[in-house]
């Protein structure tokens, strides 16, 4: 038996449980419940309700990505610093929450931000008034950032760590001040990491499910919640078809951003995750 045959179970399994299911999504997305070809499932999304959800998801995911970048870049930059002693353990500490269950992290966030939660208890103790956070878009964005920040730090850190230090020294020797070194040398050279980080935060944020509902008492729902509603609650007879077309739209959005990533970063230099 040739050794290449050992890959057969792998190929079969991935075909059956990764490729074929996606074909089902495509098939349902383009058919009526009776099985006839149609594009009408996609017309649904011109309705303000669906457009609204997509726009809201995109908006909050963009906020989340920008915040992650603003927090994540300096963090990765500091961690990659040569004279930073505890960098190694800090990297592990920052990445650790990434392995924690999404619900668990969201649950922790709820506890912190709740009206009767720890944050408000602390504010009251300090003599400041209570603030309502849960239920606002701010809470949702905060929850998303909390969940996805490590995905931004990791690729940028990887790229910065690999950077050729002599280039920076050359810039300094040629009379660049530190700010200019950062803006003209460090940042341009870390673009692959940034792009990778943006994709890795934006993708899960825009398709996130449950986080938003939990942090807003059900008031702010995102694309993932809509998909959940369509499949698990709606009594519309075409719900599988509409749900599939919506899932397909999300998938295409993601594939476009991956294509974009590949274009900016063809060698997958910033790809810490895959």
């Amino acid at each position, binding site marked *: 038996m040739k050794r290449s045959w*050992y890959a057969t179970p792998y190929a079969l399994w991935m075909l059956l449980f*990764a490729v074929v*299911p996606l074909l089902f999504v495509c098939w349902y997305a383009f058919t009526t419940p009776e099985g006839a070809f149609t594009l009408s499932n996609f017309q649904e999304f011109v309705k303000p309700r669906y457009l609204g959800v997509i726009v809201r998801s995109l908006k909050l995911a963009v906020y989340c990505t920008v915040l992650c970048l603003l927090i994540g870049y300096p963090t990765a930059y500091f961690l*990659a610093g040569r004279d*930073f002693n505890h960098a190694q353990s800090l990297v592990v500490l920052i990445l650790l929450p990434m392995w924690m269950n999404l619900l668990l992290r969201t649950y922790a966030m709820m506890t912190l931000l709740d009206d009767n939660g720890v944050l408000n208890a602390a504010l009251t103790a300090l003599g400041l008034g209570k603030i309502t956070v849960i239920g606002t878009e701010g809470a949702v964005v905060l929850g998303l950032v909390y969940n996805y920040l490590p995905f931004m730090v990791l690729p940028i850190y990887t790229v910065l760590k690999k950077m050729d230090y002599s280039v920076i020294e050359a810039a300094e020797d040629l009379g660049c001040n530190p700010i200019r070194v950062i803006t003209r040398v460090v940042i341009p050279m870390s673009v692959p990491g940034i792009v990778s980080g943006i994709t890795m935060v934006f993708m899960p944020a825009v398709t996130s499910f449950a986080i938003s509902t939990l942090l807003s008492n059900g008031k702010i729902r995102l694309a993932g919640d809509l998909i959940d509603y369509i499949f698990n609650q709606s009594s519309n007879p075409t719900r599988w078809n509409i749900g599939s077309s919506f899932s397909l739209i*999300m998938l295409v959005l993601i594939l476009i951003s991956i294509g974009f990533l590949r274009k900016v970063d063809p060698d997958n230099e910033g790809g810490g995750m895959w």
Partner: protein
Amino acid sequence: MVKNTRAAKTFRTVWMAVLMLFLYAPILIMIALSFNASVSRSQWTGFTLDWYVKLFNDPAILGALKTTIEVAVIATIISTVIGTLGAIGMHSMGSGMTNVLINVSYLPMTTPDIVTGVSLMLMYLFCHVPLGKWTMIFAHIAFDIPYVLFSVMPKLRQMNPNLYEAALDLGCKPLQALWKVIIPEITPGIFTGALLAFTMSLDDFVISYFTSSDMYPNLSRIVYSSTKLGVKPTMYALSTLMFITILILLVLVNRRTKLENL
């Protein structure tokens, strides 16, 4: 990086401290509250283990714990076998074919979880397979395999390519050569892959949510449905235990590879 002044260094320390606070305050608070005698989230009324006792007396949670472990163990074993064999097989193929097959592995890693979950659910329901434990296990195997594959592949590349041929020349049958020569060489990779797969399986919520039923809830599903009932201290206890389990597993993985390489 750019040379740092004293002020810059102080700024860096403060930045990191605030970041750590942001990342860990919620988790630490949750762990602390799991030992709080009062249900209240804003008052500490004394230390108790009651919530843990309650946790272990709740049949629903125990059942979910059993399901979670069962699913993770079965999925890990099967995906480790399939993934390892797949890596070995692909290692001996032409690069063109290997590329195609590896790209298939990127699919579950790049597809959003919710789409993966929905797609599997559609397939199961179309084939009239009732959702339950096994539908969840099959889905877990599918998303676990790539982790095994990507842990084993580098080890195979590091291996001396002549070892296998040498074993055959010395009279080993192919299966013997596989078992006696290749497997021992790549064991660390297999272990890392298996541990990663196990962690991923324990951790998963979205895909399990769509591919299983209320009848066989795993722990994440229990956490999810109890969020609808409001925040409960038993859930803090459960979260604490889940966090510590993941922590231990990661320490194990980390001892094999550097976490940052994963």
